[in-house]
């Protein structure tokens, strides 16, 4: 029943992960692997686009918690964009807006990354 897919885009200076479908305990390892590959490749400016994500469970939320510290200690960030109100509600209930930057659209997040990387410019 739980259909899930993700794809990765490179939009310098960020990597964008597009999520699609249901992110739950069964599908969370896929996202985990995508994050791991990014960290291995030294990509720490990560945007996760939720536009096509229908549902997220607690196990799905856990994936973000697993990597955020690593990413931030490497002067990067995971920014979340394009959440539907329902998905946002799940993040909001848990207080994730206190911990993650959540934007309506990808460009805002992109700009934020560009502004905050003076060392590149």
């Amino acid at each position, binding site marked *: 029943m739980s259909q899930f897919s993700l794809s990765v885009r490179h939009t310098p200076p960020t990597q964008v992960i597009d999520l699609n479908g249901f992110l*739950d*305990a069964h599908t969370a390892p896929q996202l985990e692997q995508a994050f791991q590959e990014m960290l291995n490749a030294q990509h720490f400016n990560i945007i996760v686009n939720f536009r096509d994500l229908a549902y997220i*469970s*607690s*196990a799905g*939320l*856990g*994936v973000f*918690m*697993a990597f955020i*510290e690593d990413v931030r200690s490497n002067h990067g960030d995971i920014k979340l964009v394009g959440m539907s109100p329902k998905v946002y509600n799940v993040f909001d*209930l*848990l*207080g*994730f807006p*206190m*911990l993650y930057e959540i934007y309506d659209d990808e460009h805002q997040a992109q700009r934020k990354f560009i502004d905050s990387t003076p060392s590149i410019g």
Partner: protein
Amino acid sequence: MNDHRAHADPALPFPSLPMAVGAMVVVWIVLFIHDILTGDWSGSPADYGIGRLLLPLLGFIPAALRMLQPGEEREQPPFTIFKRLTITALIMAGSVLILGILPYTYADTGAPSGFWSMVTGRFIGLIMMLGLPLLCEGLVRLFHYRNRSAATRLPRLYTYGLFLALVIGEFLPVVDTDEGAIGLGSFCYILAGVIGLFGRFLSAKGGWIVNLRKRQKIELLGLAFLGMLVAGAVLQITVDGDASLVLLSIGPGFGALMAAIGVTLLLTSMSFFGSALFALPTADAIDRRNAEVSSLANFARLLTQSLDRNHLIDTAITIACDAMAGNGAWIELKQGESYAIHLGSNPKVPSHIVDTIVNARTARNLTLAQATRHYRRVEVVDNVTGATWNSKGSVQSIRSVAAVPLLVGGEHCGTLYVAKDRADGFDREETVVLNALADQIAMAMEHSSVIQTSIERERFEQEMLIAQDLQRRLLPTVMPSSPFYELFAESLPASLVGGDYYDVVAFSDQTLGILIADVSGKGASAALYMGMIKGIIQALSGRCANPKELLAQANVALYGSIDQRWFATMTCAQIIDEKRTLRIARAGHCPTLLLRDGAGYYTRPKGLGLAIAKPALFDNNLEIEEISFSSGDYVVFYSDGLPEARSRDGQEYGYDRLLKSASDAGAAGMTAHAMRDAIFREIDTFSEGEPQGDDSTLVILRWC
């Protein structure tokens, strides 16, 4: 004749062997007494009256009937039957020697010349009387062996022929005494010849000889030779002057019949002798083939009995080695992505030699192992070199190896190797057997793993049931109540165990605390964390003054201590009875549903989930809310399994429907328990029995 009816009715009780023998002995005694009393013994047998001639017939009828017995009940190995035939004939022929030892004279009439001659003759006669039907029966059995199909009428006809001969052989001279017994005797000889030839024709069906073991073939060769000699001796009796007169005393046709049987036995023995002789050169090959077949059969039985994998591999190696008469065998099995070699408990070939052989190059530059995986059929390497080692002072070597793939459902799961110390050790026949053996092994491995899995699953389910019981006991069984409120709580895990948790605790000032929590993840892992949270809450609650403090302390205990991915949500409420007041703090949990003065709404004080944020951030974002209630108000705590319940078409139940359902129940003034029923009933109706993926917990507080 009644023989036909006897055949048609298998329920007819056929005489047993002792009964037939007994009947003949009785008849013989009657004959003996009759001849003495009447003095017939001193007269010519040609002058016997009809009663005297019919008496032996009575003796033969039970024995003749035994021949007509349906074949299924008397199936015996032809080798055994032939052995008995030969022994019987040997006794018959041997008994004639008595005539030479004891005084035996006869008159011109053919009658014994003295009383003692008569006694001797009659004693020989008894042996012949007993022997002949046994020979007949044996021959009938022999020709019926594996020849019972309706299509083959010949053995049946032979049976009838013998049956008639046994009867008519006695009767004919009586019917036609005017013509003289000699003419009829000739007729009986002709009949005997026909029956004998008939028997010879049937006895050519000696196909069973091919399948005898070599030792048995040699035995049969000797037996058939003996059979030829004794059959000749039996024939000799029928024409020998002295001895043939003895036969006359039984009946005029008896000698002729015995000649017919003697001819048949002679021809049968000759035929068996020839067959055994010609089968000898191939005896070794056939023995080996039979050994292979029986080892396959044994193997199938052994393998299905063995569930232990290592034992199974051991057995397979031993049997494959024995069946192929190999000098060593081993099995290479897939383990994950690689292959591991199993040498068995008693390896005959050292492991470094095995490695050399497995890596032996074959055509197309594949190793033997790769070739087997690639081609999926038997690979034979006939010229193995360098596989030599020393064992107990002698040099051992492997010269040829056969490798056969083990396939389960078309998937390659390993390879069976058999090695021999001579080059070209495997012929085409052996590779065929090896293939069959490999199929058996693969099937047994599959069988054992399926059973193993199901045993493990059953054990796991048992353990989960125990875990479920334990987890249930972590939840309070009786909820407290007071004049001011009524409490009801229930948790329904989606699988056997779950990650939802509710509890009642006492704060430091002895006020009552209500907790509901949801641990991230599902199933067994969530259940373990749930147990841990219970412990932490129980340890901390007595030291905390209010929900905010308890949650903050719980976060300190949980943050950073376990897997980063893990977190929990919790709502904690403190009841202050007299004031009908509740203090609520929320750590990321679902909003609490309130029904106050007929109005329903959710309250959602600020708060992060447990173990998500560092204590400072967590504490700074944690609010505590104080709400006063009046009699008839409700507070509904729940886990996300309720609003996230799904219908068959994937629709979520949602917060609005939950609020409406609770409000309706509240408006009806239901008890907490009745409200629980109403809410779950509504959700069940919505989800149409669709199994839910998440645990559902409901804690309802009703102010009295």
